[in-house]
């Protein structure tokens, strides 16, 4: 079910593929990205210290190595990791993030280069203030570099709120259900395992008028699960679908 843009509460970003399906991208917010940056900063600092210690043995050549490493860690580190298969720097990977194009495709070299060069502007006036301001102002949490490059930083994994509706004795509803009603009942049944039994029962009572089977003495939640199974297409022995 597609919900109109203005009515939505979440920041889901959909990208249509050539096959005509909509990919759901979940942009990562300021907090996750700041933590990812912090982790990356630590990784870079550790690498720099290691190179500095190793470089001591080589005199002038070591200093050269150190300066080049400083340059590479500042400018090339994010590009190299974003173009790898994971599409994320170690910090982003630890936070479960990756960089993708607006279309949901893996990030291209040009886009990665752009978004990381423009870090300089995002950093202004101090400590990524411009980036944080832009990210807070936008639903898709893009910083300036992301805007110019056409990239998104998204969560890799989806939170699994819905499971399979638990098995129950199929039970016909008391009247034919509208598609939206069917969907609501099956969705609630899908969340049965994440709710406490009491809360689930409480929610199920809202659906009592359509649940039927008043005579059987079963609880509201049992009857709701039964109707959900019936909607999914399960029937009692000998009953026709």
């Amino acid at each position, binding site marked *: *079910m597609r919900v109109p843009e203005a009515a939505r509460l979440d920041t889901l970003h959909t990208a249509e*593929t050539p*096959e*005509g*399906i*909509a*990919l*759901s991208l979940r942009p990562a917010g300021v907090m996750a990205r700041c933590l990812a940056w912090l982790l990356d900063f630590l990784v870079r600092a550790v690498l720099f210290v290691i190179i500095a210690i190793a470089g001591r043995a080589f*005199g*002038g*050549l070591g*200093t*050269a*190595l*150190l*300066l*080049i490493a*400083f*340059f590479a860690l*500042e*400018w090339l580190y994010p590009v190299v990791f974003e173009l790898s*298969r994971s599409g994320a720097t170690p910090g982003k990977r630890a936070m479960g993030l990756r960089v993708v194009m607006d279309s*949901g*495709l*893996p990030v*291209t*070299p*040009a*886009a990665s*280069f*752009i978004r990381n*060069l*423009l*870090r*300089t*502007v995002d950093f202004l006036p101090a400590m990524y203030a411009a980036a944080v301001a832009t990210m807070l102002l936008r639903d898709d949490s893009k910083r*300036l570099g992301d*805007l*110019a*490059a*056409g990239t998104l930083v998204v969560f890799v994994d*989806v939170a*699994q*709120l*819905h*499971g*399979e*509706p638990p098995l129950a004795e199929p039970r016909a509803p008391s009247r034919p259900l509208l*598609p*939206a009603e*069917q*969907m609501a009942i*099956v*969705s609630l049944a*899908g969340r049965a395992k994440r709710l406490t039994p009491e809360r689930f029962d409480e929610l199920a009572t809202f659906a009592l008028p359509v649940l039927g089977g008043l005579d059987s003495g079963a609880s509201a939640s049992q009857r709701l699960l039964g109707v959900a199974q019936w909607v*999914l*297409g*399960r029937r009692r022995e000998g009953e026709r*679908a």
Partner: protein
Amino acid sequence: MTPLQFEAAYAPLWTELEAEVAVAEKRRRFDGARLATLYRRVCEHLALAQARAYPVHLTQRLEALTQRAHQLIYRRHDYGLARLANLVLVDIPEAVRAHRMYLLVSTLLFALPLLVAGWAAWRDPGFILRLVDASTVQGFEGMYGDGAEALGRHRDADDDWQMFGYYIMNNIGIGFRCFAAGLAAGVGSAFLLVYNGLHIGGIGGYLIAAGHAGNFLSFVVTHSAFELTGIVLSGAAGLRLGWAWMAPGRHTRIESLRLAARAAVVVMYGVFGLLLIAAAVEAFWSSARWVSPMVKYGAGAACWVLVIAYLGLQGRPRREGAGGVPLSSTSTSTSVSNGSADAR
């Protein structure tokens, strides 16, 4: 069709695709044609499942699966040496020429302050103190004078390497910042261009007036071909970003910025290359005092010609009539006569 029947009928395909994707993600050999076919089928199933409001766990499984397959199927494969060669031989000079108006503005923003400051510092040795402090001037004078501290006099290979590292960190960083600063309506790039122009011009003019013309010019002539071009090019790319955002034309501002950045970043690849060469030349060639100044001027002139010819001429598409004159002219004339015959 109920959700249960749907799942029963197609779940084997989904499991198969899951297995294929898992194999492909581990970079093992996989059947690409089969993967694509399965992917298209599962896309259909996802569309159906969404349209029929099937249970969320079902659509979520299909969404996750198609998303993984999508990432694999639309991955770019054209990286590698051929792509790099094409970038260097065609794309970079073409992109530079596509930015010629920005390049003109950027050159003026850099060269005019350079000439003015150079002239002023040459006329009035005190002028340089308006730009930099006295100790910096002394440092420069030591570097380019004939004294013991002079550049290249007491330098061994170690120092050369050290300077190479420094030039990479400092100069390429300046080039990159000069591009990024353009996002601020081009003001940042313009500022950095003018600022660098004033400094280089002022110090150059001062050193020439102080009688170090030979040492200074023979030092800078070769690497300036790459370094100054690199800075001016990064400024041009930055101005492009700023202008795209200020005057978006028929695009939205963000769309216009995106398109400009995609075009300008090719110029930045060129800047990266040029400044890398500049760093190497500056560290290992410019500072070599054993090379006579005349050789350096010759090499410097050759480098300037090379850079300008590369940016101006390399990678142009062959013009009709210029390359294969007889063949193309006959073919055009035949097509013209054919055309007129058809018209009759």
